[in-house]
């Protein structure tokens, strides 16, 4: 079953194990279901039609044997499924390999904050709603929530893990083939639970390394006059109170980090594609796109808006 984010389109070992288990359960259950239906049909056909009065049967050895046998088979099948399930459970629950890349996912109403961790402080960076990972390398994912319960879930890579306040946990996943995998918050978290998605981009190690070093750069100062004016607008407006742009005075930690906004494919946690038009609409009237989110509407003159857009789009 192909799909942007199908549990049956596994792209890594974790999801793969679960998918195999799924097919075991699926086949066993299908067979059982068909057997029961056959029995039901047989029973209905076998039973006699004639309008007799009721009868009070004596001991029915054959039926007793049949029911006993069916029960025994049920027990055996369940035992088998249980063993399969527990084995997979151990494999999936194994601790992350030592060579894995670690990143921390923080759930917010209603977006994802992502910290790439590293022993060297200079090699750490923060982004939002879009995760890039190298193919073939295990990724250790530490999860935590800043407000209510969320659930981190990228079906093609792994099952879900709840982000519960007071319960930081960790899990790991890995992508074996390049691709773009969509994930979405899976625990009801309020008004915009539906629009709390994220994208995982699995790419060859070389490309990942390039992306990473790009993320580590502070963006160059605005080149054109328009972009310079845009930066001024950004800093004059309430934006810096919530958003960070490295290399400027904007250091807000309430909203997503915008340092490399232009490098991302979506806006507002997968709500909109990251295009000039949508960005403009988002800034002017975020509550229509995503009612209830915490971004306030910003009233801007047309030319200020153009400048701001030019600036934001320069943040690669």
């Amino acid at each position, binding site marked *: 079953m192909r799909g942007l984010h199908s549990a049956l389109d596994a792209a890594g070992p974790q999801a793969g194990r679960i998918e195999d288990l799924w097919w075991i359960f699926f086949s066993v259950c299908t067979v059982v279901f068909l057997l029961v239906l056959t029995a039901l049909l047989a029973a209905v056909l076998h039973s006699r039609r004639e309008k007799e009065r009721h009868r009070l049967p004596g001991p029915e050895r054959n039926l007793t044997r049949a029911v006993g046998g069916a029960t025994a088979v049920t027990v055996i099948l369940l035992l088998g499924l249980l063993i399969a399930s527990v084995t997979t459970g151990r494999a999936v629950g194994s601790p992350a390999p030592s060579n894995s890349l670690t990143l921390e996912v923080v759930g917010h109403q209603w977006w994802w904050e992502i910290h790439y961790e590293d022993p060297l402080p200079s090699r750490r960076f923060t982004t939002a709603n879009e995760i890039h990972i190298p193919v073939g390398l295990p990724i250790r994912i530490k999860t935590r929530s800043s407000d209510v319960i969320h659930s981190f879930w990228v079906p093609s890579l792994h099952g879900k893990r709840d982000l519960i*306040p007071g319960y930081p946990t960790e899990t790991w996943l890995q992508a074996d083939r390049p691709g773009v995998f969509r994930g979405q918050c899976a625990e009801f978290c309020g*008004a915009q639970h539906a629009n709390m998605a994220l994208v995982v981009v699995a790419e060859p190690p070389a490309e990942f390394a390039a992306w990473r070093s790009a993320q580590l750069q502070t963006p160059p100062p605005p080149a054109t006059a328009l972009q310079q004016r845009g930066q001024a607008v950004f800093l*004059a*407006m*309430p934006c*810096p*109170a*919530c958003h960070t742009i490295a290399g400027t005075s904007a250091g807000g930690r*309430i909203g997503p980090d915008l340092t490399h906004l232009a490098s991302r494919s979506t806006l507002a946690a997968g709500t909109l594609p990251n295009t000039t038009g949508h960005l403009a609409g988002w800034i002017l009237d975020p*509550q*229509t796109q995503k*009612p*209830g989110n*915490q971004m*306030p*509407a*910003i009233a801007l003159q047309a030319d200020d808006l153009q400048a701001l857009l030019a600036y934001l789009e320069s943040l690669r």
Partner: protein
Amino acid sequence: MRRDRFDQRLTIVLLVLLALAGCKREERRFRSSPAADARPGVVRVGELQPGPPTPGLVVANPFIKNAPAIADGQRLYTQMNCAGCHFHGGGGIGPPLMDDQWIYGSDPENIFSTIVEGRPNGMPSYRARLTDDQVWKIVAYVQSLGGLPDQSALPGRPDHLRAKDEGVPHYPTPPRSAPAEHP
């Protein structure tokens, strides 16, 4: 006969009123409300003035008694680190917000301009950091600390709140929550 019809009408009216009451408290206003965009211009902060008294400009807080807006205000209060000086309304570095003494006036528009303009001796201006809509929400929350709006619109406690009355030791709590006030 006529009486029945009268009763019916009365019931309907009552139901509508109830509905309004319910809506006002519960309505989730996602779009910024027009009233909230009206920023009061000249705001009086004192009684003294030459000549005969003139009525000051009065702007009603569009979010008063609106539970979700008050909750937003509470969130902004934390995010803007108001608690850093005022703590959870008890005051500390900054003046307390729970009592009924207001240096610059307790009317909504006074609180509004206090937040927007800032005040001497430490209260910074949030003009550049908040939209009017957000400021009004904070005003609603601050007013609620003084018990001004209908209590039924108030949250019982924020999840990071320390005990209501102070001076009792607590578990070590996450950095975002402020230390307790000592009277």
